[in-house]
């Protein structure tokens, strides 16, 4: 074939995709899991062999051309490598987690999905990025569908449309960029052109990224689709799509001011939705979206510390959020439901899962010694240093939101308290799930205790001290008093669980009035058309009938009606064309 | 039998002249009005007339349907074969001049056109008859296994 293929195949993500196809052909869950893990380790070894490079001097590999456009299959720099490494860790954890429970589709598509995400973050140009962007969208749809219910099918369809739509926005933006500049390189761009006008190409790309990053109003696919997937599938979904978008934003729009506003709104708005949702994975999904706000804010601030913070937080977030989804998946596997109203007191039957959820809660709220503390405080510090007070306040609020959504809802309400009927389950999570959760918890602790391990991988060298008395005291005050308030509220019966049912979100707009409007338009058009068409037909029928009553049997005529009308239609079109011809001059 | 006697005698009388006329049109077509297509139709018309007078089965005895595909193919092959022959002789498709290269009176053109027209005539006649046989021999109801 061509150098394009040769270039692509050097990309570890592409190799993982190939491995995903092979895994699909293997029999037996165990064998598939082993093969998947082997492939992940092998591809990671390939990535590791490429080493790393500073931000301002990336190493480019696998250069090729596609109909005259220069493509760069791999760009190695510290930003891309840290995300790729993260995705490899996530893929490995997913493979272990799904050892016994991943269906053939999930095992295979999970690898392809991870490969697409890895390929995407390593991509050196916009076109290659788009290739993997689209592959990630398509492979993840199958994971949503893996939920197996009809609701999952419908959610998957909506997910597919919005994901492909994101891809189309990206593609349109890239096409416009290429048309305008002839360049495909993926570098930092700006929403405003030099003369202050809006840069349409960048805006399209920005929207493409924004859909996947869960920007407010564009986020609805996320809490819609993630809770529909299977136990294993949701863990996979939580890791890649959104973080890939965060990478793309960090690469393409660092320091774009509007991101701060968007991020702040995300961070705050979704904690309320999280507090109101009744499905526990939906709570997690909203919480994930709120955490994305942290990263978006960091990218919007755009200083070296802030970018570092965003990347570090993305890293931690993949791990702890994955861990929480794993815990919930384990609960789903055992208890068969994740409706908050039906679950409590699970810790008796599932103590280890409860412990994992607890560690997850500690991490996400940012308790010292856990990863969240160090990564969150970087972004908060950056907001503080650069005097972005609103952002700073939003991030503080989001931290409290995490206390409520994860600490209270996910951990306390589900695992603690009196035992509900649904919580009388046979035992703790299956062993592979426990192993995966334990590994994730270990990573959270290691990063929390020894943050320099992570910082050495971050895009910029920035000496940041997380463990200062300031941070410790302020963070602990924040968390403890929030916990205190929630505890008091519980104690005095002021707090209630959210109502059981469906929480409406922006998607309501198109799922209810949108659908009604569409149906109305369709019906209206059909009716109008019908009336017009049958009116014409009836008129002509009368005419022809009058003619043929004297001339011949009408049975034969009736049969050829449809053709007759097609022919009539052709004549009409020709007539119009002729009229236009004559009128035009 | 007697009812159609006049008709049949007339048909017998007309049959040969129609064929001759067909041949006339056929071979006249090279430099005057006429040609293979018209000749083929006239030729077929003779047999149609025969079938009208004597019944389809009799006509099928005279000109069995089995032969018709062969005739059709022969006709087309005669036409196309002439073209291929000119190509093989080193000229363009249907460039008849090459068939008689030394002639100053375009004899090649004559030969070529006669061959081609003959092919057309045979093909048209046999196709017409095939269509006629199918229509005339059509059973009122089509059995399911015929589909």
């Amino acid at each position, binding site marked *: 074939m061509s150098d394009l293929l040769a270039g692509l195949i050097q990309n570890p993500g592409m190799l993982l995709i190939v491995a995903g196809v092979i895994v699909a052909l293997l029999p037996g869950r165990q064998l598939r899991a082993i093969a998947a893990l082997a492939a992940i380790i092998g591809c990671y070894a390939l990535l590791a062999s490429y080493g790393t490079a500073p931000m301002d001097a990336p190493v480019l590999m696998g250069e090729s051309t596609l109909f005259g456009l220069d493509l760069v299959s791999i760009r190695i720099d510290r930003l891309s490598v840290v995300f790729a490494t993260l995705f490899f860790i996530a893929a490995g954890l997913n493979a272990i987690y799904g050892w*016994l429970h991943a*269906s*053939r589709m999930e095992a295979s598509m999970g690898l392809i999905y991870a490969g697409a995400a890895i390929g995407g973050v390593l991509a050196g140009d916009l076109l290659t990025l788009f290739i993997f962007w689209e592959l990630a969208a398509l492979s993840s749809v199958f994971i949503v569908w893996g939920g*197996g*219910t*009809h*609701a999952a099918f419908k959610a998957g369809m909506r997910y597919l449309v919005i994901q492909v739509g994101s891809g189309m926005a990206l593609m349109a933006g890239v096409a416009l960029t290429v048309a305008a500049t002839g360049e495909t390189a993926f570098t930092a761009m700006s929403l405003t052109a030099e003369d202050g006008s809006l840069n349409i190409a960048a805006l399209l790309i920005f929207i493409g990224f924004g859909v996947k990053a869960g920007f407010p109003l564009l986020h609805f696919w996320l809490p819609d689709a993630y809770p529909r997937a299977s136990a294993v599938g949701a863990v996979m979904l939580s890791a890649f799509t959104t973080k890939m978008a965060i990478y793309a934003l960090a690469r393409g729009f660092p320091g774009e001011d509007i991101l701060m506003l968007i991020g702040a709104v995300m961070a705050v708005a979704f*904690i*309320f939705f*999280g*507090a*109101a*949702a009744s499905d526990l994975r939906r709570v997690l999904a909203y919480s994930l979206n709120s955490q994305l706000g942290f990263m978006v804010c960091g990218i919007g601030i755009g200083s070296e510390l802030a970018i570092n913070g965003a990347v570090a937080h993305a890293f931690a977030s993949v791990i702890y959020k994955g861990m929480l989804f794993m815990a919930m998946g384990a609960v789903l596997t055992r208890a068969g439901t994740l409706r908050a*109203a039906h*679950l*409590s*007191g699970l*810790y*008796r039957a599932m103590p280890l899962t409860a412990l994992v959820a607890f560690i997850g809660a500690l991490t996400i709220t940012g308790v010292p010694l856990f990863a969240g503390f160090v990564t969150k405080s970087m972004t908060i*510090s950056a907001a*503080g*240093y650069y005097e972005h*007070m609103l952002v*700073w306040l939003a991030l*503080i*609020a989001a931290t*409290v*939101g995490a*206390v*409520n959504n994860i600490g209270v809802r996910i951990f306390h309400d589900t695992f603690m*308290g*009196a*035992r*509900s009927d*649904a919580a009388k389950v046979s035992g703790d999570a*299956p062993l592979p799930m426990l192993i995966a959760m334990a590994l994730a918890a270990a990573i959270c602790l290691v990063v929390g205790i020894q943050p320099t391990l992570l910082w050495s991988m971050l895009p910029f060298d920035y000496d940041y001290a997380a463990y200062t*008395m*300031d941070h410790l*005291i*302020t*963070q*602990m*005050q*924040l*968390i*403890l*008093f*929030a916990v*205190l*308030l929630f*505890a008091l*509220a519980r104690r005095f019966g002021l*707090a209630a669980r*959210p*109502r059981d*049912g*469906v*929480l*409406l979100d922006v998607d309501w707009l198109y*799922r209810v009035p949108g659908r009604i409007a569409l149906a109305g338009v369709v019906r209206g058009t059909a009716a109008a058309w019908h009336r017009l068409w049958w009116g014409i037909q009836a008129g002509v029928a009368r005419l022809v009938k009058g003619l043929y009553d004297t001339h011949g049997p009408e049975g034969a005529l009736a049969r050829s009606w449809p053709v007759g009308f097609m022919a009539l239609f052709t004549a009409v079109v020709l007539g119009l064309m002729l009229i236009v011809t004559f009128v035009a001059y | 039998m007697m009812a159609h006697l006049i008709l049949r005698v007339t048909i017998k009388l007309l049959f040969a002249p129609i064929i001759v006329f067909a041949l006339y049109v056929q071979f006249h077509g090279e430099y005057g009005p006429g040609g293979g297509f018209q000749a083929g139709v006239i030729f077929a018309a003779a047999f149609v007339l025969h079938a009208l007078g004597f019944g389809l089965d009799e006509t099928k005895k005279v000109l069995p349907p089995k032969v018709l595909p062969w005739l059709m193919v022969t006709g087309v092959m005669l036409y196309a074969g002439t073209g291929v022959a000119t190509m093989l002789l080193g000229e363009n498709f249907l460039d008849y001049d090459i068939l008689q290269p030394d002639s100053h009176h375009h004899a090649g053109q004559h030969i070529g056109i006669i061959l081609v027209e003959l092919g057309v005539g045979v093909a048209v006649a046999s196709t017409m008859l095939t269509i006629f046989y199918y229509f005339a021999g059509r059973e009122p109801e089509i059995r399911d296994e015929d589909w």
Partner: protein
Amino acid sequence: MSDNHHTPASEETGDTGFFEKPGMRKILWVALLASCAIFAALGIYGMVAGWMHPYFTLDGLPVFYALAGAIVAAVLGAGGRLLSEALTKPSDYYDSPADETRPDDGEGRP
């Protein structure tokens, strides 16, 4: 409506777990209050002694973070509840309950 609000307690006798014992609950409460007090005190001390470095004047206020935590928690609690009241619809609002059932996929899901 109110039946959605029930706490999922099918409290059975003899099913009291480790964390539900009254003694344990008391210990947890004490621990929580004590640590709140300690960190509040540390914060005030740090601010007064001047080794804490606020970003803004706002967080120069001693125990600002404690207040922020409590206030946001209160707002969030109330807001979440309001949102839940306002926007929660029955489970079959979009999808019929039959949509949630899973046809067997032949792979022998556990």
